[in-house]
C-alpha cells in the first residue's frame, strides 16, 4: 500500500493548562497521553472497537454541559480539557463505586485478586466508602465447560469479551442479553459454554478486566496427583511457556526462562519434565510426510495445520466442509502425551494407568482438547490428564513458595526432552509453517537444504502469504492468526478463489505467545499488545537461532523414536498413535 504522505492537519488543544498540538482526529485520550497523562479507562481497548460504555475516562471540556468520554471524542481546535478537576474526580469515583456496588465483595478470595482492573481502578480512584450500595444482580455461574468458566456476577459489562469474540475471533459467541440493570453477557440463550459455538480460545478470559471469565482451573487435581505416591506424574511444557512465564516473576517480556521453569517443575514434584517441542518436531515430520503424499495424490490441498485446538474447534463448528483439509496429525501436546503413556511407559516399564500426564499450555482450549474422546487411550482414560495454563503454573510456583530468582537452570528429561529449534518456534504465528518448510524441502528433494530461516512467513500481520520453492515447484503458503483473519483465507479456500498448498492457522492473535492462557500483562499494558507479543516471539526465535539443531528431522530423539518404536513416518503405528480425526459439531457457527 502506498503510504499517505500528505501532511495531516493538526489542531491545538489545551489539556490541564498544557498546550499540545496533535493531528486532526486524535482523541482526547491520545492527546493527553502525549503530555504524559494517562486518563483512567476500563472498556477501552486499543485493538477493539470503541464502546464508550464504562464512562470511566470522562473529562471536562470547556463549554460542554456534560462530561465527554475521552476514548472516542476527537479533539477540536481550541478545545480546553480538564482531566482532573475535583468534580471529575468525584464523578469517576462515583462511577467506579457504582460498578463495585453491583459486584461481589469477595476480592480476597477472587482468582483475579492482585491483577484485577476493577480493583486497581477502585484503588486509583480512591473509592473509600460505599454510598449507594443496594440490590445486586445474581446471575448464575456456568462452570460446566472444560475450558472457560463464565461468572456474570463479576461482570462489569465493559463488553470487551463480546468485542474480542466478534471482532478478533469472528466467533460471535457472546452477546449482551436482556437490558438495563439485569443485562448479562452470555452465549445465545444463556447456553453453557461447551454447548455454544464457543471455540474455547480463552481470549475473553484474557481481555476481561475482572473474573467474569476464567479458565477452568486444574491446579487442584495436579496438586492431588503430585501428592499421590502411586502416581508417576509427568509434565510437558509448550514452546511458548518459556517465552512468557518469566513475566509472572517480574522478568521483562521476551526473556527466555526454560531452565528456571524446568527446575521449578522438578521442585513442585514432577517425576519427569518433557518438552512439548519434541512433540512439535514429531508433528512436523508426520505433517510434512502427509503433505507430500497429498501433493503426490492430488489433494486434498491445501493442507491446513491442526495444532491450535481453538482453530480445530472453529473448523468443526464453522467450516465443517473443510475438515478433509486439516492435517490429521495430533497436536504436539497430544502426540507427546500419547508417547508418554506408550513409548515412555514401555521403556520405563511403568503401567500407563499410573502415569499422570500434565501439560502446561498457553491455551485454555487445550483443556477441551485433552478431554476429547479422540484423545483417549483404548481403556477410555485420557492421554493428557490435566492441562495447566501458564497462569496456573505461575500461581502454583508462587503458592509452593519457590524463589524464582534463585533457581538454577535445569534440563528436560530423556527420552522426550530433546527438541530442535523448529519445535521451539511453534509457539509463534508462522512458526509451524517455517518448521514444516524446513522439513518439507528436505523430504521433497531428498537432501538437506541450506535454507533454515523463512523470513517471508514471519511477522505479526494477521494474514501473510508467500510462494516458497520446493524442489522444482513453487508452493503457495498462507499464515493466519486470529480467526477473523483466518476467515479471509478459509473463504478463499471454500470458494476456490485461491489455491494454496499449505496453510497455517493459529486461533489466537500472534499465535501461542498470545494464547488465552498466558500471563495477564502488567498494569498499563493492554492484552494483545503487539509489542508484548513481538517480544515473546523474539524469545522463541532467539532460542531457535542459538541452537545447532534446527530441523525436526535431524532431531536424534525423533530418529530414535522412529527407529525403536514407530517405524517410519506415516506408518500404521504412527497413524494409530499420532493421528486423529475431526467431525462437524453443533451448534453450527455463523461465519
Amino acid at each position, binding site marked *: 500500500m502506498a503510504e499517505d504522505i500528505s501532511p495531516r492537519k493538526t489542531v491545538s488543544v489545551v489539556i490541564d493548562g498544557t498546550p499540545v498540538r496533535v493531528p486532526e482526529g486524535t482523541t482526547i485520550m491520545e492527546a493527553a497521553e502525549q503530555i504524559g497523562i494517562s486518563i483512567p479507562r476500563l472498556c477501552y481497548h486499543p485493538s477493539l472497537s470503541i464502546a464508550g460504555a464504562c464512562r470511566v475516562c470522562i473529562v471536562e471540556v470547556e463549554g460542554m454541559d456534560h462530561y465527554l468520554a475521552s476514548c472516542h471524542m476527537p479533539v477540536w481546535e481550541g478545545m480546553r480539557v480538564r482531566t482532573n478537576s475535583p468534580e471529575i474526580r468525584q464523578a469517576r469515583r462515583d462511577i467506579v463505586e457504582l460498578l463495585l456496588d453491583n459486584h461481589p465483595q469477595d476480592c480476597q478470595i477472587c482468582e483475579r485478586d492482585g491483577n484485577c482492573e476493577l480493583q486497581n481502578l477502585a484503588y486509583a480512584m480512591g473509592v473509600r466508602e460505599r454510598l449507594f450500595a443496594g440490590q445486586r444482580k445474581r446471575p448464575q455461574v456456568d462452570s460446566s465447560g472444560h475450558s472457560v468458566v463464565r461468572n456474570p456476577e463479576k461482570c462489569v459489562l465493559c463488553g470487551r469479551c463480546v468485542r474480542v469474540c*466478534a471482532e478478533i475471533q469472528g466467533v*460471535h*459467541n*457472546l*452477546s*449482551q*442479553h*436482556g*437490558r438495563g440493570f439485569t443485562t448479562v453477557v*452470555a*452465549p*445465545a*440463550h444463556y447456553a453453557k459454554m461447551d454447548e*455454544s*459455538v464457543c471455540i474455547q480460545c480463552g481470549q475473553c478470559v484474557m481481555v476481561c478486566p475482572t473474573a467474569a471469565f476464567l479458565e477452568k482451573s486444574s491446579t487442584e487435581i495436579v496438586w492431588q496427583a503430585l501428592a499421590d505416591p502411586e502416581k508417576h506424574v509427568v509434565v510437558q511444557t509448550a514452546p511458548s511457556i518459556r517465552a512468557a512465564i518469566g513475566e509472572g516473576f517480574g522478568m521483562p517480556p521476551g526473556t527466555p526462562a526454560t531452565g528456571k521453569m524446568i527446575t521449578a517443575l522438578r521442585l513442585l514434584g514432577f517425576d519427569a519434565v518433557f518438552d512439548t517441542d519434541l512433540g512439535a518436531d514429531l508433528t512436523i515430520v508426520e505433517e510434512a510426510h502427509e503433505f507430500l503424499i497429498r501433493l503426490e495424490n492430488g489433494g486434498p490441498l491445501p493442507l491446513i495445520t491442526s495444532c491450535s485446538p481453538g482453530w480445530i474447534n472453529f473448523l468443526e463448528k464453522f467450516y*465443517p*466442509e*473443510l*475438515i*478433509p483439509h486439516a492435517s490429521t496429525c495430533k497436536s504436539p501436546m497430544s502426540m507427546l502425551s500419547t508417547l508418554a503413556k506408550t513409548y515412555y511407559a514401555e521403556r520405563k516399564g511403568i503401567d500407563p494407568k499410573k502415569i499422570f500426564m500434565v501439560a502446561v499450555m498457553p491455551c485454555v482450549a487445550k483443556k477441551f482438547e485433552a478431554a476429547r474422546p479422540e484423545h483417549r487411550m483404548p481403556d477410555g482414560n485420557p492421554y493428557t490428564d490435566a492441562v495447566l495454563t501458564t497462569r496456573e503454573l505461575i500461581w502454583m510456583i508462587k503458592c509452593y513458595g519457590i524463589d524464582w530468582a534463585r533457581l538454577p537452570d535445569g534440563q528436560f528429561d530423556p527420552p522426550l526432552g530433546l527438541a530442535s529449534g523448529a519445535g521451539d518456534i511453534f509457539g509463534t504465528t508462522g512458526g509451524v509453517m517455517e518448521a514444516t518448510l524446513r522439513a518439507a524441502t528436505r523430504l521433497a528433494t531428498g537432501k538437506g537444504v541450506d535454507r533454515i530461516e523463512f523470513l517471508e512467513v514471519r511477522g505479526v500481520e494477521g494474514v501473510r502469504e508467500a510462494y516458497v520453492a520446493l524442489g522444482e515447484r513453487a508452493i503457495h503458503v498462507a499464515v493466519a492468526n486470529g480467526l477473523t483473519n483466518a476467515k479471509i483465507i478459509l473463504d478463499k479456500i*471454500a*470458494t*476456490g478463489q485461491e489455491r494454496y498448498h499449505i496453510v497455517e492457522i493459529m486461533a489466537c492473535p500472534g499465535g501461542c505467545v498470545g494464547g488465552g492462557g498466558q500471563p495477564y500483562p502488567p498494569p498499563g499494558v493492554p492484552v494483545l499488545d503487539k509489542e508484548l507479543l513481538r517480544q515473546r516471539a523474539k524469545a522463541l526465535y532467539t532460542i531457535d537461532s542459538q541452537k545447532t539443531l534446527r530441523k525436526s528431522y535431524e532431531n536424534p530423539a525423533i530418529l530414535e523414536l522412529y527407529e525403536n518404536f514407530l517405524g517410519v513416518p506415516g506408518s500404521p503405528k504412527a497413524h494409530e498413535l499420532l493421528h486423529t480425526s*475431526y*467431525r*462437524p459439531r*453443533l*451448534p*453450527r*457457527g*455463523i*461465519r
Partner: protein
Amino acid sequence: MNSPTRPLTSTDNWPEVEAACRRILGERICQLIDEVRKDPRPESHLITVLHQVQAEFGYLGASHLDAVAQLMQIPAAKVSGVATFYHYFRLQPRGKFLVNICFGTACYVKGADRVAEKFMSELGVQLGETSKDGMFTVEACRCLGMCALAPVITVGEDVWAQVTADRVPSIIEEYIRRAKAT
C-alpha cells in the same frame, strides 16, 4: 452459505442443518427469510423476521431463534441478544389470551395497579405468567397511547377502556365463554 462452486464434502452438515431449520420455522417464515435475503443487508430485517416468528408461534423459543440465525446467517448470540433486548418479544409460550395492562402515566394515576392486582389474584398468577389452564397470560406494558380512556387493558386484539378492579371477573368470564364457544 455454501458456495456452489465447490462440490460438497461429506463433512458438510449444512444441508441437514438447513433442512432442520426450515422444518422448525415452517414454510411461511422461510419464504419471508428467503425474500429478505435478497436485500443487500438481510440482517437489517432481523426484527421484522422475529415479529413474524412471534406472530406465527406466539413466542420466540430457542429453537426458533437458532433456526432464524442459521437461515439468515446471523450469529445466534446476536439473535438471542436482540430477542432479549426488546420487551415486545416473548421468550416463553403464552396463554390463549394475552392480557396487557397499561401502566402508562394516566392509567397508573387512575388505578392500573389495582386492576393488575385483581387479575393476578383472580387468575393466581404473577405479572408475566400464564394461568394454569393456559388461557391467560397477564402482562404489564408501557403506555398504549389511549390515556384518555384510562385505565386501559388489551385482551388479545380487544381494547377495554376505563377498567376497574370490579370489572375484572366479568372480563375474564367473557373470554372463558368465548373460548368455549369456539
